[in-house]
């Protein structure tokens, strides 16, 4: 429980330092913007989405939740090697994608699989990536949950933290040079705000006046390290001030607030008014990934209040309150999502377990170098001599 003491200590330190700050001023400058109240009601003037759009987005959120839960089970069964999902952060993901235009490029972190799916990546293709099998669009080159989907302008995921931030700025500058109406969006967590490329990207965004949207899913935890040990700033949004870009702080579990902030940021970017940092205040309800067990560092009582703020529960309450959904209708959509996932897994698992041997060397360069051609031949010869060379998974 040392970690819990660390958190308490960090909080005490923050309390001591509070006298040098003015939280009220920060709250004025970066208020937590909310539209969807806890009871599921919302001011119709602020909702910003049509009933049909809300229902469609809610369906995506349900699919994402069911998918995350099912994939964790598959990982526990040993059918996939690893999984990292977005449980509790669905409003932050789908609200921001919904605020974009189709031509806008997404520079993902590693929890925005829902964005790839919403942009048209077939679910079975996504599962093939998790399996790293012959149907994997990434040719088995990356571990699970590191997909790319070019037809949906969903750029490839890497594990190094915050590298996508300056990349998104580069894409925005490129679109400006080409005269395209395209506003890139980069996702990252609050842990990434400690990484050098976050600072570099924010600075480049400010100086270049690039039209880009930087979405921080502040879920409170970078594996075991809580926000308090990640930054001494009261908010993530306030970091925008130092770089001369806009900052907004929204309830990340409120689909409407996230969507509105993204749409505002997009409009500003498209109008040549530069970048926006959007802090989505949310919470990681589960472990970091299937390789993590949060019980080792996070007391359950910290999580419980956030379960009550579950973004899907809140949105469901809204839909039911508006008479757009019944309890039976909701359960039917959940059941339908589970069936869609079951079929996708079945379809994905029908592929050969491994991609063809030559894919090992495919795409390192546009054309393989002589070294790679020689090495492929060497590998083939070795497998012919002893099939165990190709054995195992």
């Amino acid at each position, binding site marked *: 429980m040392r970690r819990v003491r660390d958190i308490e200590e960090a909080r005490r330190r923050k309390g001591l330092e509070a006298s040098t700050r003015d939280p009220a001023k920060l709250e004025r400058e970066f208020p937590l913007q909310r539209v969807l109240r806890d009871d599921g009601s919302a001011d119709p003037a602020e909702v910003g989405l049509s009933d049909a759009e809300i229902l469609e987005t809610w369906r995506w959120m349900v699919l994402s939740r069911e998918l995350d839960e099912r994939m964790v089970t598959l990982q526990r069964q040993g059918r996939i090697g690893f999984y990292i999902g977005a449980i509790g952060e669905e409003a932050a993901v789908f609200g921001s994608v919904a605020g974009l235009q189709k031509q806008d490029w997404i520079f993902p972190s590693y929890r925005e699989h829902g964005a790839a799916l919403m942009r048209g990546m077939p679910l079975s293709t996504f599962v093939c990536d998790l399996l790293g099998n012959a149907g*994997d669009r990434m040719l088995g080159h990356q571990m699970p949950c590191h997909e790319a989907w*070019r037809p949906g302008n969903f750029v490839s995921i890497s594990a190094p933290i915050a*590298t996508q931030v300056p*990349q998104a700025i580069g894409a925005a500058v490129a679109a400006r040079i080409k005269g395209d109406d*395209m506003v890139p969006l980069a996702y990252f967590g609050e842990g990434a705000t400690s990484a050098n*490329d976050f600072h570099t990207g924010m600075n*480049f965004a400010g100086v270049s006046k690039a039209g880009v949207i930087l979405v921080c899913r502040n879920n409170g935890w970078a594996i075991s390290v809580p926000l308090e040990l990640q930054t001494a700033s009261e908010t993530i949004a306030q970091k925008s001030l130092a770089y001369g870009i806009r900052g907004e702080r929204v309830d990340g579990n409120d689909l409407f607030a996230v969507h509105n902030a993204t749409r505002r940021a997009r409009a500003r970017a498209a109008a040549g008014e530069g970048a926006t940092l959007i802090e989505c205040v949310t919470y990681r309800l589960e472990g970091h990934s299937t390789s993590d067990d949060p019980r080792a560092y996070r007391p359950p009582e910290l999580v419980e209040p956030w379960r009550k703020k579950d973004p899907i529960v809140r949105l469901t309450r809204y839909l039911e309150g508006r008479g757009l959904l019944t309890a039976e209708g909701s359960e039917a959509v959940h059941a339908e999502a589970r069936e869609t996932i079951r079929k996708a897994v079945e379809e994905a698992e029908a592929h050969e377990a491994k991609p063809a041997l030559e894919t090992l060397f495919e795409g390192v*360069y*546009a054309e393989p*170098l002589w070294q790679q051609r020689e090495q492929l031949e060497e590998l083939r010869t070795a497998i012919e001599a002893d099939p165990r060379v190709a054995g195992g998974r």
Partner: protein
Amino acid sequence: MPTMNIIQAVNDALRLEMRRDPNVVILGEDVGKFGGVFRATQGLEQEFGTARVIDTPLAESGIIGTAVGMALYGLKPVPEIQFADFIFPAMDQIVSEVAKYRYRSGGQYPCPMVIRTPYGGGIRGGHYHSQSPEAHFIHTAGLKVVVPSNPYDAKGLLISAIRDEDPVLFFEPKRVYRAAKGEVPEGEYAVPLGKARVTREGSQVTVMAWGAMWHEADQAAREAADDGIDAEVIDLRSLQPLDIDTLSGSVRKTGRAVIVHEAPRTCGFGAEISALLQERCFLRLEAPIVRVTGFDTPFPYTLENEYLPRAPRILKAIRDVVAY
């Protein structure tokens, strides 16, 4: 035909490629109005404007990270890292991102760019203005690495690199930036990547070098000729892709190999060339393959002439392998 130095040849190549292809953009520290601290981008901002010749904030990872986004979106960025010694803050972007984008996306997102950077010692620059970090990048699958030694190759190789589909590290030998002069054709021409050049034919020993050290190797071969030693000299020009056929063909002929580079010896690219040659020429070798290199130290200030593999040290190696 005009006579140019390497800086002028690089500038000429950049200008021609920017005129030819509106997607070519330049970004880096001081590259705009000032034209670069070595003046390689002089006049380009004036001709092509600040949208395509971009003065960036002082952050190498930002320069390369921004270039990645540009490349993915269809531009052909030519970022400049002011000194190769300062490329390390951008290593994560180069090694984890630039080199891997095509591969990790299953070919969906190529990331072609040309990272230009002056490298090498002999200019009294100490640790941080003298290093030759090429081996790091050759060791990273997905990158190409090119090092011209003269103005003609600098222009032709840079044009090829800009037109290439893969990311290229383009190391410019700053020790001979202005000293190496030569005739350079006007207009476009390409020197292909992956082709070494035999600059001096010989029968007794093959001396291999690139960049600034080619000039030292050439000098050593001339001096060896005075001793009656007939040395062949090869300018590698492109380290990845590597023209192994030209190298191994020469060593099969001469039976002896001397590899010269100014980077430290251990795990330097000479080690790879040596391994490749012994795999291919084992039965034809008359003497052990010898490396004449910088030493396993940080690049020194006062004793840099002792550190650099200059002609006298190469000459000794040539004599030693011939007498073996």
